[in-house]
């Protein structure tokens, strides 16, 4: 409990997040109806991998089905736009799977048929070198779905001889520094890498006490535990929607070992990125 300035006593939220546990601990036993509701909700939130071309589900995890030497994952619209313009436009990529998932952040109510224009999570491999994989993930993968995503993508047999690269953005106010965040020149890039990653990062490492959450953290944790070389490039920005300056902030990553050889014409790709951002801007306004 805490007293506000006006003297009213309010229940202060507990940082340790124990409110739910207290309810469970109070001995409220679940009725069969509660269990059924919970089971149905869990089913609705299940992460499923399937092939859009054949409309069939993948029976095994993606990386158990295919051999992989490089896996590049973009999480969030700016990272997706960057990879789309610079990497996907420089080669021929074939779609090998799509993750279908629903959670409260999805704006679609129809969970059975997610259209390509909506938030998505699609997997591709390079036709000229099928062991190079790319994941474009612009949907939010909720806490309870992150481990399922890992299972469906990486499977239960971690492969140590692949290099994983993750690109994502976070809001600059999440960045802790002794200066004020208003004095920071965003966007800027920071990196985090696993023990086994020998690749020198293209920017400075993320200093403590800064931490990362969500899907990028789930992937990096998996790689750290199972000794897979992986590196996360984090772009701190003050614009979370699709933005040219933010997407371009990932450019230093083009010189990294993971992306070298996958990008052909940088000026052309930059033009493609500009067009992508402009198209998106025209479509979104306060009336849509």
């Amino acid at each position, binding site marked *: 409990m805490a007293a506000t300035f006006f003297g009213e006593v309010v229940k202060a939220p507990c940082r340790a997040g124990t409110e739910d546990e207290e309810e469970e601990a109070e001995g409220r036993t679940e009725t069969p109806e509660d269990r059924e509701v919970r089971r149905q909700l869990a089913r609705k939130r299940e992460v499923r991998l399937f092939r859009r071309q054949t409309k069939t589900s993948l029976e095994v995890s993606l990386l158990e089905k295919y051999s992989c030497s490089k896996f590049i994952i973009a999480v969030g619209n700016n990272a997706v736009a960057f990879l789309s313009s610079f990497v996907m436009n420089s080669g021929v990529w074939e779609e090998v799977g799509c993750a279908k998932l629903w959670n409260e952040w999805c704006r679609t109510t129809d969970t059975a048929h997610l259209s390509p224009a909506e938030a998505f999570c699609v997997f591709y491999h390079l036709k000229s070198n099928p062991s190079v994989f790319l994941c474009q993930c612009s949907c939010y993968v909720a806490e309870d779905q992150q481990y399922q995503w890992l299972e469906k993508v990486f499977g239960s047999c971690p492969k140590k001889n692949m290099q994983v690269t993750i690109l994502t953005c976070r809001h600059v106010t999440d960045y802790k*520094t002794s200066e004020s965040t208003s004095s920071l020149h965003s966007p800027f890039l920071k990196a985090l890498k696993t023990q086994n990653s020998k690749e020198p990062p293209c920017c400075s490492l993320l200093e403590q006490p800064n931490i990362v959450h969500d899907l990028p953290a789930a992937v990096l944790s998996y790689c750290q535990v199972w000794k897979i070389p992986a590196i996360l490039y984090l772009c701190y920005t003050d614009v979370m929607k699709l933005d040219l300056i933010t997407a371009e902030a990932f450019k230093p990553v083009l010189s990294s070992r993971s992306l070298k050889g996958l990008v052909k014409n940088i000026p052309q790709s930059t033009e493609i990125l500009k067009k992508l951002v402009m198209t998106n801007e025209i479509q979104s306004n306060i009336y849509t």
Partner: protein
Amino acid sequence: MFVPCGESACDLAGFTLLMPAVSVGNVGQLAIDLIISTLNMCKIGYFYTDCLVPMVGNNPYATSEENSTELSINAEVYSLPSKKLVVLQLRSIFIKYKSKPFCEKLLSWVKSSNCAKVIVLSSSHSYHRNDLQLRSTPFRYLLTPSLQKSIQNKIKNLNWEEMEKSPCIPEISDSEYCIRIPGGGITKTLYDEGCSKEIPMAVLLKFVSEGDNIPDALGLVEYLNEWLQIIKPHSDDATASTLPWKMPSSWRLLFGSGLPPALF
């Protein structure tokens, strides 16, 4: 599941396992951070689980440039073989409905590792205290029956207060009495499971409120130290200005970034 850092699994037979419960003020976790940092404990593995919200960051106990780049995840295991101590640190909250499965997986690992005893560092909401508790020390302990047998005398000599039972349903006057640890997260579940699975377990907790909980964490490690004597007891020498407990480098900026000068 426990995944070792190195190639070989570690033998934890006879070790004392210290762990936090994610509880009010995060006091248990802060206390564990102090222990790992002060004793300069070595990371021996990860407790990889789908029960905790994922998070990563660089080494929270870094003391120099060289050791600052080791990646840390949400549940890691550290050890100090010279003191037969093994510590589990939890850095994030439970995913909904996953706290009970976590307790089961954890205790199953404890049993298979043959740890001598488990000590859970925790906290409880200070506003739930009754009149007697308000007037006494804020520290409490609980022992499972299997640990009580071996250390009852030692605890008696320390003059510690055992956690009191309170009405199971506070609103009802003739309600049964049981152990309640409001704000304690999984503490009660761990304790109950520890009792039923005959695991030698102790719970050490402090009544706290949310806020700057560093002093609470320091209090809790001193309380633990009275029993385990992990470090030499803090001397009463008035000239000793340094705390025996070392705060980790990651404890900076706990309350956010610097303020914009324009504010003033």
